[in-house]
């Protein structure tokens, strides 16, 4: 009997399978370690935050991602996690060289992981050209050494949500513009039992979202444009701290020292505060449940909410919008598929579906979306459209560098104000913060 060993069998079966596979049969398939093209499904893994607009996550999960799988012929694993956990996930993925193919980044995170990300300039060039060009802040965060290290998705940011009727009660039919007007209105509001609600705690979004623009509005800044020379300890910053103490004591809810990003939403919807700097999520929640959130006169709270920019100081008024950027990870073996997916999802009809589901919670990353009909649906949300144009990034007047991220992660600017409202002399709190910045930027 002729003995056929394993090698011989593979060769024979390979020869027989030539007709079926131009690639050289089973032997070749085994040698290549890959399934034949017709049996092979490319798979990508996309991690995003759990959206503050849950309808958008639902849309992605139930419609857009399955549609992408069909159109692109790939398997897409879509995962949402808490925003606070994304960095831990990125760190472990990069250090182990294994993990999701695309991870959503907030703020200036792409700059922290720049050398571990894939070059996606080809995708961003196409999208940028087709969509009227990216905002400068997207470029500042998304470009590293001349290359795009992430595909900007959208821009999120905060405006002041306020109760129109309560402001009108204290004589402000129009929302206060200057800080002095804020102080005047805030004092009266607090006396009426409706204080201003603002966090001074260690929380990633709302705390820097208010206190950085507040600092800038007084003319204060962390560093010069060179990104090295610390210039925080100035007369302007000290004045801003002095005013913050008065604003806090006379106008704000003292509980704000312990608030996280969701506390002001709850307080506002419960009717314990009159105004707070936030994304559009408060209004969207009130709009979603008009029968649950009511004013003291029993009317839907949504009709009593409007949005305005934070106060204007000697240097103007500013905002701290945060670009959301999809990073294609450098370790990913599916970079091409990941780029194809991002290219597809950013095509106007597909992205528009998601953008509309946000109802104005985010701005587009490119100017094209300023003209989107979504802004005409609800005038209460329209002010969010202009956020990117008044936006600055952490680390101003320098770039949004790793040092800027360190300053933010250590909450040095936020704590400068927190220490002062807790009793430290304004000059001392500014000096402390300045010295901390010098150590970071050294």
């Amino acid at each position, binding site marked *: 009997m002729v003995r056929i060993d394993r090698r011989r069998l593979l060769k024979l079966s390979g020869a027989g399978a030539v007709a079926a596979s131009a690639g050289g049969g089973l032997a070749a398939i085994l040698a290549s370690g890959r399934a034949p093209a017709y049996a092979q499904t490319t798979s990508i893994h996309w991690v995003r935050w759990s959206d503050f607009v849950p309808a958008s996550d639902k849309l992605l999960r139930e419609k857009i991602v399955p549609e992408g799988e069909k159109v692109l012929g790939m398997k897409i694993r879509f995962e949402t996690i808490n925003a606070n956990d994304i*960095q*831990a996930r*990125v*760190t472990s993925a*990069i*250090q182990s060289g294994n993990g999701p193919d695309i991870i959503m980044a907030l703020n200036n995170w792409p700059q*922290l*992981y720049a*050398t*571990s990300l894939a070059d996606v300039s080809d995708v961003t060039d196409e999208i940028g050209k087709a969509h009227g060009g990216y905002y400068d802040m997207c470029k500042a965060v998304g470009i590293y050494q001349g290359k795009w290290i992430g595909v900007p998705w959208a821009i999120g940011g905060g405006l002041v949500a306020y109760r129109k009727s309560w402001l009108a009660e204290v004589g402000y039919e129009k929302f206060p513009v200057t800080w002095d007007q804020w102080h005047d209105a805030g004092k009266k509001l607090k006396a009426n039992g409706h204080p201003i609600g603002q966090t*001074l*705690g*260690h*929380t990633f979004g709302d705390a820097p979202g208010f206190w950085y623009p507040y600092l800038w509005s007084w003319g204060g800044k962390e560093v010069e444009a060179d990104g090295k020379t610390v210039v925080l300890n100035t007369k302007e910053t000290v004045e801003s701290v002095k005013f913050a103490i008065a604003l806090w004591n006379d106008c704000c*809810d*003292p*509980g*704000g*020292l*312990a*608030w*996280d990003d969701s*506390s002001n939403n*709850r*307080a506002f919807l*419960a009717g*314990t505060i009159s105004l707070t700097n936030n994304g559009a999520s408060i209004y969207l929640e009130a709009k979603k449940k008009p029968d649950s959130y009511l004013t003291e006169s029993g009317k839907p709270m949504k009709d009593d909410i409007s949005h305005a920019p934070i106060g204007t100081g000697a240097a103007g008024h500013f905002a701290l919008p945060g670009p959301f950027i999809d990073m294609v990870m*450098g370790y990913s073996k599916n970079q091409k598929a990941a780029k194809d997916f991002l290219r597809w999802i950013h095509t106007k009809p597909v992205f528009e579906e998601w953008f509309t589901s946000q109802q104005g919670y985010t701005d587009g990353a490119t100017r094209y979306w300023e003209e989107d009909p979504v802004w005409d649906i609800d005038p209460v949300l329209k002010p969010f459209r202009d956020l990117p144009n008044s936006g600055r990034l952490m680390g101003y007047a320098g770039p949004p560098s*790793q040092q800027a*991220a*360190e300053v933010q*992660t*250590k*909450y040095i600017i936020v*704590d400068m104000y*927190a*220490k002062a409202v*807790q009793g430290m002399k304004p000059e001392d709190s500014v000096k*402390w913060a300045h*010295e*901390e910045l010098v*150590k970071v930027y050294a």
Partner: protein
Amino acid sequence: MTFTTLAAPTAYAGTPRRGPVTRLLEDERWLAMLLLLPTLALLGLFIAYPFVEGVRLSVTDAKVGVPGQFVGLQNFERIWNDDIFHVAVWNTCVYTAVATVFKLALGLWLALLLNHHFKGKAFTRAFILLPFIIPTVLSTLAWKWMFDPTFSVINWMLFRLGVIHSRINWLGDPHLALISVIIVNVWRGVPFYAIALLAGLQTISPELHEAAAIDGARAWQRFRHVTWPLLLPVTLVIVLFSVIQTFADFQLVYVLTGGGPANATQLFATYAYQLGIGTGLLSQGATISLAVFPVLLLVVIVQLLYIRQVETH
């Protein structure tokens, strides 16, 4: 005289030939080594390797995705001059010391109560373990609600009882914030102390108490001169474990305050996380984590020496 040649004893035909591996394993030293191997591998993988990696990172300028260069003790010098680190050191020491004292006192009290016979004893013993069983993050979230500046159920209750007239800013006031996180740590840790000390109490023969009682010793004297000396070695081991765990606590503070307000509750672990993960500065995060090591080592050495002394006597 005839000599009968004594042939060398032949192996019994039925005995299987022993291979080199079997012969090696019959040597107790090799067998012991083999049996220890899985444990050694686990210890090496999950304790020694991370520790060595931590030491390596702390003497480099490594960032996420960047291996970094050797920088000697530069990171240690940096944290030595870091105000937030100083605050974290102080907070961690206060947090550990106060929490440990309260956990021990309350745990011992609870263990003594549970050591008595009463109706529903088994149920009560299982019930008091709840704080220890529930995942820390979940129970801490519940506490966060109870301490919420606006919706605190504790404030509501105290207000209704007429104890307070304005709300207490549990997590917003720097001193109260540290007290609050200590309260939660004590709440979570007491069951561990209680059950472990209860196990210790049950090893003490009731005859000793009876003899002391016959000799006229009262309850406190019986505790002071019988129970406590016999319970001391167990107590010291429990305290040792607890101190190590409390010193390295992370989840509780991370969920409750994130280290705020203005670093009033910042601990070693939360600060290391902020720098290592939040900023990508792995080397500095590792340095802060490693800074705990000498302190803990000292605590462990002192306690182990004391335990040995107690056991010898």
